[in-house]
């Protein structure tokens, strides 16, 4: 092959490859633009007041959540009456990737669009969604919770490693006292007690905090290829393992049960989790009526009902299932995630 032939082949192939590359980017850009336009047949979304307490515009219980329906209000916090979750949505101007609220305190983990790539921040909101405090995040938001009193806030982000190919991923979980602004930047600074002994390992990861009160909480610890339910103490800065194979615990409003996702042996590796509830008095566990794999930290809508996200046409849809193992799953709300009941 002459040098000329080689050059011609190179240029021709580069032209084809460049066309494919540019085409794929334009196609993706067009699709991104479509998501910002209203989707025919989607839920009606209008701008308005969204509050985190019944004292606001809400006279009846409402669901506040991240709206994922296409249109100009995509990713904004929105609310609907609890009695009519598929009805018209009221959207705020606050956009969040993850959200939770209790006692009028909201935590919103949001993206900040930068010059090169997005960064993330945690924003503490008051009951009118006004920003109270703001903290930069060092990874991609995944979980957020507020203690029942509204005083403590916790969040978890994913941090990626650096190695080639199969990268190493880890989580950082932080706890913030909204009264003092004291930030415990990572649970890795806590003393871990595993099976009765002090334990340390570079591979520990924590995620999915759920608060019992302003000092006690539950979370997931992963180490040595296993996951554990841990009970944490914010004041003593200790974490104690309670049992194995518990991820993303969520404490019931009456404080007696934990909903969690369990890795069930024998299931497909693609969809390894099932929702379970554990009774903290007897430590007995019970599977729920949802047969699909759930990768979410469930939310208690009341003492009898759990809500969780499943993949849907617009990212995720919210589903509910009774917390006692009976009944069957029902769709709660389409194109939504991270719901809380207020009022």
């Amino acid at each position: 092959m002459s040098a000329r032939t080689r050059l011609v082949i190179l240029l021709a192939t580069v032209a084809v490859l460049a066309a494919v590359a540019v085409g794929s980017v334009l196609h993706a850009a067009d699709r991104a633009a479509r998501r910002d336009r209203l989707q025919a047949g989607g839920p009606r979304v209008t701008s308005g007041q969204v509050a985190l307490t019944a004292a606001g515009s809400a006279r009846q219980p409402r669901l506040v959540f991240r709206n994922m329906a296409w249109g100009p209000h995509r990713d904004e916090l929105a609310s609907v009456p609890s009695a009519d979750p598929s009805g018209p949505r009221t959207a705020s101007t606050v956009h969040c990737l993850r959200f939770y609220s209790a006692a009028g305190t909201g935590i919103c983990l949001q993206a900040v669009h930068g010059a090169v790539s997005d960064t993330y921040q945690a924003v503490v909101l008051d009951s009118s969604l006004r920003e109270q405090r703001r903290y930069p995040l060092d990874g991609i938001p995944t979980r957020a919770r507020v203690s029942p009193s509204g005083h403590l806030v916790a969040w978890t982000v994913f941090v990626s490693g650096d190695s080639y190919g199969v990268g190493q991923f880890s989580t950082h979980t932080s706890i913030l006292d909204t009264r003092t602004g004291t930030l415990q930047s990572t649970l890795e600074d806590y003393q871990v007690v595993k099976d009765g002994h002090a334990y340390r390992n570079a591979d520990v990861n924590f995620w999915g905090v759920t608060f019992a009160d302003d000092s006690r909480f539950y979370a997931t610890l992963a180490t040595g290829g296993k996951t554990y339910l841990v009970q944490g103490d914010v004041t003593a800065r200790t974490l104690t393992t309670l049992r194995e194979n518990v991820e993303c615990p969520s404490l019931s409003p009456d404080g007696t049960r934990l909903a969690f996702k369990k890795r069930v042996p024998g299931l497909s590796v693609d969809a390894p989790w099932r929702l379970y509830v554990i009774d903290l008095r007897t430590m007995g566990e019970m599977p729920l009526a949802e047969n699909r794999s759930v990768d979410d930290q469930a939310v208690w809508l009341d003492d009898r009902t759990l809500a969780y996200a499943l993949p849907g046409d617009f990212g995720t849809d919210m589903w509910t299932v009774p917390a006692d193992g009976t009944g069957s799953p029902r769709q709660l709300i389409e194109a939504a995630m991270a719901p809380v009941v207020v009022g």
Partner: protein
Amino acid sequence: MSRAGGRTVPRAIPRTVLILGTVSLITDISSEMVTAVLPLYLVAELGLSPLGFGVLDGIYNGVSALVRLVGGHLADRGRRHRTTAAVGYGLSALCKPALLAVHSVPLIGAVLAVDRTGKGLRTAPRDAMISLASPPDMQARSFGVHRAMDTAGALLGPVTAFFVLRTAAGGFDAVFTVSFCVATMGVLVLLLFAPGRILEPAAPTSSGSARVAPVSAAPASAVSLRAAFGLLRRPELRRLTLCALLLGLATVSDSFVYLLLQRRLGISVRWFPLLPLGTAGAFLLLAVPLGQAADRFGRWRVFLSGHLGLLAAYGMLLTPAHGTVLPVGGLPVAVLPVAVLVLHGAFYAATDGVLMASAAGSVPAELRSSGLALVQTGQASARFVCSLLFGAAWTAWGAHTALAVATVALATCAATSAVLRPLRAVEPAR
């Protein structure tokens, strides 16, 4: 540049080295594009929990070592360096469209494992081509040029990926498609412009490549697995591999270094993703000068000095956290993290390509690829064992003690290697 007849004559970098450098640069843009967006893709787009991803890592390290030896051997058989390398690059390229098709953590993990298989296959043949194309007194410089170009690609990849996501929000499919197009271009450049056979060791060709390497008179039929392992009967190579192994056993993996930096010196977690960039930047800038230094002052000397640099970095990580911030022109500058990262990058610049250049001199041309694979595999396996031991030490004694032990181990291994001096007989021709 090298000195000839008392005056300084700039000598051209062999064309093959530049072509292979270009291929690596292009390929690294492609692969780092994917690596950079993968966490975001898994969490934000697929809504998956990527934890447990590392599980494959341990098992895969063994397979990876085997693949590298196979790649090295295949390349030597029938002198098919380019073909073997092209299969490796091609395999990795095909993984990019595969990423569009799979949507679960285990399957994505499997695709990435195939990607790494491609990397394992191509590394030794490519390094053999670099060394075969370079005159004996310019080996380390050639490797330095290649590693610098490779690292430049690794730095450009994430920028390219984020540019695509900037243009098309959520356009991960576009990132994978662009990555595939870029990878294909790399394979094409390799197939079109790299020579199919570097040279017959005995037959002089143009461009000075006839001066290549001390070659034994072994016929091509001697290229067998047995002959490949038989290389270890050569005292220089055996001692070199032994030293690489020893030093590898005390080389704490990058992720631990960054973790230690972040925790011991109290760097904000926000800067964590930037730490590898510091190492890469120093590697990029120092690869060529340190390669030249190795050719000039002795590859073994530079290789060992690189480890002394790493030893210094460990020492800094062991110092107490206070006093790390110095006011420079009114701005607090975190001196220690910068120094640690520069030393870490310098360590790679002084050892990565230099080891290959050192090994090349002790391996006959017809077994070059197998020999380099042998040394690489020894080093990589030792480093893997080190990360297991270091992890266990961390669990048992805590981070500080584990690092102190690693520091002592590195000092001991470096001292032992200095005594062994594997390259006494094959210091570079002046």
